[in-house]
C-alpha cells in the first residue's frame, strides 16, 4: 500500500464524525486539549475582570463602588478561579494536546477518561459559578479558613458550593493525573527511554503523582466543612471539641503541593522553549529533570510555612522554614540551567522567547521575596499584608501566566497551522510586562507600609493612595496587553501565515507532524534514538515497508516504562457520550448536595453508577470492559 492510501485508511479509522453527536462524544486528545485551553483561558478572563473590579474599588481611598460583602465575594471568586480553574486546567490543556504528540503515541492511555476529565472540569467550574450568580458567592478567600466558613458566620449557599465544586474538580484532577501517568510511562515511542523523553513529560509526571496524593486532603477538609455547616458535626467548632486549625492543616497539606502543580508544567514549557530559541540542547537536562521531581516530593513537606502565625513549636517552625529554603534551591537549579543555555546559545528573539525570558526575570523577583517571607520573623510582619499579594502575583504571573503565553505563542502554529503576528505579539508582550510590573511592584511597598490584604477600602492619609492608584493603572495596562494577544489569536486564525510542519526548527517529535496534525497524528510510529529527534541524523519515520503503521483499527503501541521497548498493542476506544453523561450526573449529584436535597443526591449517585456501568459494559463480542 502506498503511504497516501495508508494515510487515508488511518484517517477513516481515527476521524471523529463531524456532527453534533461527534462534538459531544469525541475522545480525541487534540480536540480535548484545545477545549481545555479555551475554557481555561475564558475563565482566566472572567477572573481577570473580577480583579479589575477590585482594583477600581481600591484606586482611591474611601471609595464605595461596591459594598464590602461584594468585595469579599469578588476577591474570593478571583482567587478560586485563577488558582483552581485557570492555572491547572490551562497546563492540563497543553499536556493533553502535546504529550501524546511529543512521545509519539496516537492518543492518551484512557481516551474516554480524558473526555470525562474535561467535562467534569467544565461542569465543576459551572457549579462554582452558580453561587455568585445567586448573589451568595463564597466570601472567605480561596483558602476559606474555618471557623469563618461555618454556617453561623457564613450563611447562604456560597461555602456549600465552594466545598462541592472543589470536590468535583478534584475528581477531575485525579482522573487526569492517572491518565497522564499511564500515558507517559507506557506509551512512549519505541526507543524513547526514560532519559530521552522531553522535559515536559517529567513535570507532567511529577504533578500527576503530586495530584494523586494531594487531592484527597482537600476532599477530606471539604467533606468536613460541609458536614459541619449543614449536618451538625463538630470538626471545626471548638464548642463541640473540634479544632479550626484542622482545616488549615489539611488545606495546606493539599495547598502547597498544589502551588507546584500549577507551577512545574509552566517551567517545563520554558525548558522546552528556551533551548529551541537558543539553538542548542538545554544545559543540564538531568539536573532539570531531577530538580523538577524533587520539587514535587519536597513540596509535600513545607505546608506549615503558610501557618507560621498560627503558633507552633520553634523546632517545627525551623524544620518547615528550612524545607521552604531548600525547595527554592530546586527552582534555582532550573533557572541557572535556562540562563546558561541562553548564554551558550545563539538567541532567536521571537515573541515566545520574550515571554520565556520574562518568566525568568519575574520569577526571580517573586522567588526572592518568597525566600524573604520564608524567614519566620519577616513572615510575622508581612503576613496578611499586600506584600503577600505582591509576592503571589509575582510567582503566579511569572511562574504561570508568562510561561502560558510563551507556550501559546510557541505551539499556536502547531495547533492551528497558522503563524501568529510577531509584531503584534511583541507589542502585546511589552504592554503586559510593563503593566504587570507597574501594577504589582508597588503592592510590595504598600504591604510593607502596612496595608492589609482583603480590605475593601482604606482611609486617606495612610500614605497608600498614590501607590494604589498606580497599581490600578498598571492592572488595566496588563489587561490591555492580554487583549492585544487575544486579538492576535483570533485574527491569525484566518489570516496568519501558513506555518508548515516545523516553523521554529524545533527538536521534539510534535514538530514532525502536519500543522494541525491529522486525527491519527502520524502515519508511521517513530523510533527514537536521541533526546532531540529532529536535530539529529536519524530518520524516525523511516519505515518503507509500512511495518509501524498499525492500521487494523484504533491501535497504538504500549512500550516498557524504562527502555520503551514495544511490549504490546493497545486497542483504543471509539467515540462515546458516556463520559459527558457521567460528568453530568455527577454535576447533578453535587448540585443536589449543595442544596441538601438528599433524595436528589441519592438519585444522582445512582445515576452516576448506572452511567459508569453503561460506559464499561462490553460492546463487541469478546471484549471485556474496565
Amino acid at each position, binding site marked *: 500500500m502506498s503511504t497516501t492510501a495508508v494515510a487515508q485508511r488511518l484517517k477513516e479509522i481515527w476521524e471523529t464524525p463531524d456532527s453534533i453527536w461527534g462534538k459531544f462524544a469525541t475522545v480525541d486528545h487534540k480536540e480535548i486539549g484545545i477545549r481545555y485551553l479555551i475554557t481555561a483561558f475564558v475563565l482566566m478572563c472572567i477572573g481577570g475582570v473580577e480583579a479589575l473590579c477590585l482594583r477600581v474599588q481600591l484606586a482611591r481611598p474611601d471609595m464605595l463602588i461596591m459594598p464590602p460583602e461584594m468585595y469579599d465575594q469578588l476577591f474570593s471568586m478571583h482567587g478560586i478561579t485563577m488558582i483552581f480553574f485557570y492555572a491547572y486546567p490551562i497546563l492540563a490543556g497543553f499536556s493533553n494536546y502535546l504529550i501524546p504528540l511529543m512521545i509519539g503515541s496516537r492518543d492518551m492511555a484512557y481516551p474516554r477518561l480524558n473526555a470525562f476529565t474535561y467535562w467534569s472540569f467544565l461542569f465543576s467550574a459551572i457549579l462554582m459559578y452558580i453561587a455568585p450568580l445567586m448573589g451568595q458567592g463564597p466570601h472567605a478567600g480561596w483558602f476559606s479558613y474555618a471557623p469563618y466558613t461555618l454556617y453561623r458566620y457564613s450563611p447562604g449557599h456560597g461555602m456549600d458550593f465552594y466545598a462541592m465544586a472543589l470536590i468535583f474538580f478534584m475528581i477531575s484532577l485525579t482522573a487526569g493525573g492517572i491518565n497522564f501517568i499511564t500515558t507517559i510511562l507506557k506509551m512512549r515511542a519505541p526507543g524513547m527511554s526514560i532519559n530521552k523523553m522531553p522535559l515536559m513529560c517529567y513535570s507532567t509526571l511529577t504533578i500527576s503523582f503530586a495530584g494523586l496524593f494531594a487531592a484527597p486532603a482537600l476532599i477530606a477538609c471539604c467533606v468536613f466543612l460541609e458536614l459541619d455547616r449543614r449536618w451538625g458535626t463538630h470538626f471545626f467548632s471548638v464548642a463541640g471539641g473540634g*479544632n479550626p486549625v484542622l482545616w488549615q492543616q489539611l488545606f495546606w497539606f493539599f495547598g502547597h503541593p498544589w502551588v507546584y502543580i500549577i507551577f512545574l508544567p509552566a517551567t517545563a514549557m520554558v525548558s522546552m522553549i528556551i533551548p529551541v530559541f537558543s539553538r542548542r540542547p538545554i544545559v543540564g537536562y538531568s539536573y532539570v529533570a531531577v530538580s523538577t521531581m524533587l520539587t514535587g516530593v519536597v513540596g509535600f513537606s513545607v505546608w506549615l510555612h503558610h501557618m507560621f502565625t498560627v503558633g507552633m513549636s520553634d523546632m517545627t517552625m525551623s524544620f518547615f522554614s528550612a524545607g521552604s529554603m531548600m525547595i527554592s534551591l530546586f527552582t534555582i537549579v532550573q533557572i541557572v540551567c535556562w540562563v546558561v543555555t541562553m548564554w551558550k546559545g545563539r538567541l532567536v528573539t521571537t515573541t515566545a522567547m520574550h515571554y520565556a525570558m520574562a518568566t525568568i526575570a519575574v520569577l526571580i523577583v517573586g522567588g526572592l521575596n518568597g525566600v524573604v517571607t520564608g524567614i519566620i520573623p519577616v513572615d510575622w510582619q508581612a503576613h496578611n499584608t499586600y506584600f503577600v499579594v505582591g509576592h503571589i502575583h509575582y510567582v503566579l504571573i511569572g511562574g504561570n501566566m508568562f510561561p502560558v503565553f510563551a507556550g501559546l505563542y510557541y505551539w499556536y502554529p502547531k495547533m492551528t497551522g497558522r503563524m501568529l503576528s510577531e509584531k503584534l505579539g511583541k507589542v502585546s508582550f511589552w504592554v503586559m510586562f510593563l503593566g504587570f510590573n507597574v501594577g504589582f511592584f508597588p503592592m510590595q511597598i504598600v504591604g510593607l507600609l502596612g496595608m492589609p490584604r482583603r480590605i475593601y477600602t482604606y482611609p486617606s492619609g495612610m500614605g497608600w493612595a498614590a501607590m494604589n492608584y498606580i497599581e490600578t493603572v498598571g492592572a488595566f495596562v496588563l489587561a490591555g496587553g492580554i487583549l492585544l494577544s487575544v486579538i492576535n489569536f483570533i485574527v491569525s486564525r484566518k489570516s496568519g501565515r501558513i506555518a508548515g510542519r516545523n516553523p521554529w526548527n524545533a527538536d521534539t517529535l510534535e514538530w514532525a507532524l502536519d500543522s494541525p496534525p491529522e486525527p491519527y497524528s502520524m502515519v508511521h510510529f517513530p523510533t527514537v534514538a536521541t533526546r532531540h529527534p529532529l536535530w539529529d541524523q*536519524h530518520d524516525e519515520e523511516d519505515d518503507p515497508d*509500512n511495518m509501524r503503521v498499525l492500521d487494523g483499527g484504533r491501535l497504538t503501541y504500549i512500550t516498557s516504562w524504562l527502555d520503551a521497548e514495544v511490549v504490546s498493542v493497545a486497542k483504543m476506544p471509539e467515540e462515546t457520550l458516556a463520559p459527558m453523561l457521567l460528568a453530568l450526573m455527577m454535576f447533578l449529584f453535587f448540585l443536589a448536595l449543595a442544596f441538601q436535597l438528599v433524595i436528589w443526591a441519592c438519585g444522582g449517585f445512582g445515576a452516576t453508577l448506572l452511567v459508569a456501568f453503561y460506559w464499561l459494559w462490553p460492546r463487541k463480542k469478546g471484549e471485556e470492559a474496565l
Partner: protein
Amino acid sequence: MNHSVPINRSSKLVALDLPLDDTRGIWAMWMVVATEATLFICFFGAYFYLENNKDRWAYNHPPAEHWGWGMLAAILLSALTIWLGDRAVMRRSYGHARALLALTLLLGVGYLIMQGFDFAGHWATLTPYSNSYGSIFYVIESFDALHAIVGVLILAYVLALPHYAPARRAPYRPYRVAAIYWYFVATIWIAIFCLLYIIPNLRVYGF
C-alpha cells in the same frame, strides 16, 4: 539508523503479532487505590489531630468490638475467595471463577449487614453530633461503608459480565481490577479496626 522494533509483519496484521494490552485498567485501579488510601490517611490524621489536647476521647468509652471481629473475618475470607477466583481465571476455569466471585459477593453483603448492626450498636451511645470524636468516627465508618457498597456493586457487575478471559488475551481484565479494589476495601477495614477499635480498647486495660 535504528530500527530495532521487534515487528516483522506486513501492515494490517501487525496487531495480531503482538499481544493486546491488558494492563492499563490494572494500572488505573492501582492509582485509584493509592489516592483513596491517601483519603483514609487524611481521615486518620484528622482523628489523631482532633484527639490532641482532649481529656475525653474514645478511651473512656471505647467502641464495642464484637461486630468488628465478624466483619474482619468476613472481609478477610472474601479477599481470599476473590484471590482464588483470580487464579481460576488465569487457569481459564471460568466456572470456578464465577462461583468464587459469587461467594465473595455474598461475604461482601454479609460484611455490610454486620456493619449495619455495628453502626446501630454505636448509635445508642454516640452520634456524629455528640462531639468531634463522634463526628470523625462516623465519617470514617461511613466512608468505609460507602467503599464497601461500591465494591459490592463492582463485584455484582463483574459477575454479570457475559464472559471472562485471562490476561494476555482480551484487551481488558475486569476480574483482576475488581479484585484489586476489593483487596483495598479489606485493607481499609483492617486499618480502621486496629486504629479505631482495638487500640482504644487496649488502652482501657492499661496498655
